[in-house]
């Protein structure tokens, strides 16, 4: 049978995860290290998806659940139906991001990811000092890790200068064609 529901249909298309397979045993939630911090745990999220209503989908995209998921994949590892929840989370994060429905808790996480990717975009590799700086700028957490950085430096864990790869142009293009290209975003 065709799946006529827009929400679960699109999800199936992009992640090949069929939410109908979930029989709500809750094993994913039982083993989730951050379930208690989430607005609602993974199994509940799967249930919301099963309802297929716009209003519940909205709840998901605006929740901190999708952002607090660490992709540790314990849920997938233990799911009796082998449902790839981490993949679903990735997809939902992208959706939430593209439709600007970020939960407040998501902001620092997104800032971090963005700073991380920026640093790659320009150097090809992660430039930790740049990352931290960028993150602080984005998140206004100017004082965070102030104690950490010097010791890192002393222990020779920080490069003050970024490592640059030769083919930075190539990397730039990869970004241009993917994340910086509005067309690649799942609608």
């Amino acid at each position: 049978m065709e799946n006529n529901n827009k929400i679960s249909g699109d999800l199936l298309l992009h992640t090949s995860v069929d939410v109908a397979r979930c029989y709500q045993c809750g094993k994913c939630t039982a083993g989730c290290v951050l379930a208690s911090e989430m607005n609602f745990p993974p199994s509940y999220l799967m249930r919301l998806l099963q309802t297929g209503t716009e209003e519940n989908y909205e709840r998901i995209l605006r929740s901190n659940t999708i952002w607090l998921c660490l992709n540790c994949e314990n849920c997938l590892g233990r799911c009796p139906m082998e449902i790839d929840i981490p993949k679903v989370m990735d997809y939902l994060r992208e959706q939430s991001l593209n439709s600007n429905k970020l939960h407040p808790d998501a902001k620092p996480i997104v800032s971090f990811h963005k700073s991380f990717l920026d640093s790659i975009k320009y150097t090809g590799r992660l430039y930790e000092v740049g990352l931290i700086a960028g993150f602080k700028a984005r998140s206004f957490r100017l004082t965070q890790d102030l104690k950490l950085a010097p010791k890192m430096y002393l222990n020779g864990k920080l490069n003050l200068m970024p490592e640059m790869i030769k083919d930075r142009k190539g990397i730039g293009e990869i970004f241009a064609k993917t994340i910086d290209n509005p067309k690649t975003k799942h609608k």
Partner: protein
Amino acid sequence: MSKIGVFICHCGENISATVDCERVAQEIRKVEGVEYAIDYKYMCSDPGQTLIKDAIREHHLDGVVVGSCSPRMHEPTFRKACAEAGLNPFLCEMANLREHCSWVHEKGEATTEKAFDLVKMLVEKVKRNKPLDSIKVPITKKALVIGGGIAGIQASLDIANTGHQVILIEKDPSIGGHMSQLSETFPTLDCSQCILTPRMVEVAQHPNITLYTYAELDSLEGFIGNFTAKIRLKAKSVDHKKCTGCGACFQKCPQKRIPSEFNAGLGNRTAIYVPFPQAVPNKPVIDREHCNYYKRGKCKICEATCPTGAIEWDKEDEIITEQVGAIVVTTGFNVKGADFFPEYGYGKYKDVLTGLQFERLASASGPTLGEIRRPSDGTIPKKIVFIACAGSRDPAKGIPYCSKICCMYTAKHAMLYQHKVHDGESTVFYMDIRAGGKNYEEFVRRAIEEDHVNYVRGRVARVYEKDGKLIVKGVDTLLSGQQVEIEADMVVLATAGVSNCGAEQLAQKMHISYDPYHFFAEAHPKLKPVETNTAGIFLAGACQAPKDIPETVGMASGAAVKVAGLFSNNELVREPLIAVVNRCAPPQFSTCVGCFMCQTACPYNAIEREEIKGRDGKVIKTVAKVNPGLCQGCGTCVAFCRSKSIDIQGYSNEQMFAEVMSLLNH
């Protein structure tokens, strides 16, 4: 010029929903040789059959094609109907318009066209059908029952009580099966052994039952009514004729630490042993793998202590041959071990048990004499967790099906625990409670309401040990996914019921089919639950799918009735769909050149040599001849025959070619 009648069935809407039955009937009328064609709502119903009979008489039909369901379902029905109208039953064929057409295609032109093609194909076949007479073969009125659990016991007793001989074989040293391991049984909580052991004794004493324990089926040949079974009697190393069962031997046996199968590994047994005190026969066998003498060549203490000199060191396996007319397979099931569950510790925690092990703990005949104690330190668990669906309904673990009995025995376990440990706390993690059955739901409610078992809806993610406690990480999905952590003293897994080890090989020995999980396949999911696809072989109990005791006993009696029914005839009527070697006028007599390739092909040694002699008695030629009693009609010989002299009735070259032609010529 043949006069074929075609009857298209709507099967309610099962066929007519996607196939234009009326048009198929109209179109087929135009086919050469079709005298009469009509469609009707339920062809198998009484008016439907009457329709066919009347048509046969009115239109003097010499062939009938019924386009309806699978011939595996209703071929006998319609052939009988034809016979009643005076048409030879083998002039009736069925076109499978339901399973092979209407159910597997969407509504549309193509589907109706295919239906027409299928019918036309059978029309072309039936034009070339020949009237055949059924073959009669004698029946050996003796049954073989394989497996001495409650199913085998029930089937044996029921057959034996109809006055027929039964041979019951059991691979273990005693009959009784899993039921003998159970503590108390749901939903009545009566003691399993109290109701089972009398039956076991009855089997041993029944004049019509020959019991072979420690025995397995070695090979099976023949066919319904005439099977030849070779049975391997494994060497017991103890002469049960001399043995009095006094027990001196196993009290003295120095090998005392062998995990007892009967106690599911929780207790120990000796190398020479009787599995349990109420065993039937209550006489020991020697487990050669663990016996000092067989391992190191010395010990023989049992021999020294045996007052009757019953020990037979050099006894070897013995193969006996039995002729039987029917077989009931009751080989039962098995449960997954705790080591099957990574998330629950790969079986490394002593106090994580399977349901079967808990049965032994709770059983008065068990290693703790019925006291619930932790295998690790012998203390009484104050907090116990039961995990339902451990492995069942778990495609990731390769077991998508529901094991059916777990919901009930888990409720029973929790109840037994609460009855034995009054200050104890028991929690059951479940997904659904499946308590379909007389007084089953009430039983579960009793566990919850009267014995205050704490039922939590959710699956457990993992179990780990810390400071002698088992930390259970679960969830309560009814509280929108609140995590539940319990520090338990014991965890019991309701592990999935699986087919018994060796089921596949046994099925292959008997040529019966089995499902992907190696449970034996019944002939029809609804209407032939105890038959297999091989005539004369029947199923009972959990070897077909997990089931509880009442169901098993019911099925066993069902199989017994089938056997008794078969034995109520002196002769067996078999379909004449067998091979024949052609005959023609002298001087050729037969196109058979006597190469006897067919002989090499035949799995049943049904091909004999026949000498054709002239008047003077001189042998003119030797040709092949088929023994109709032995031929099963596989037709392998037909494909082998170079001169096309051997052919198979009902699937003749002419018929098969006609079918293929009809599909393509248009």
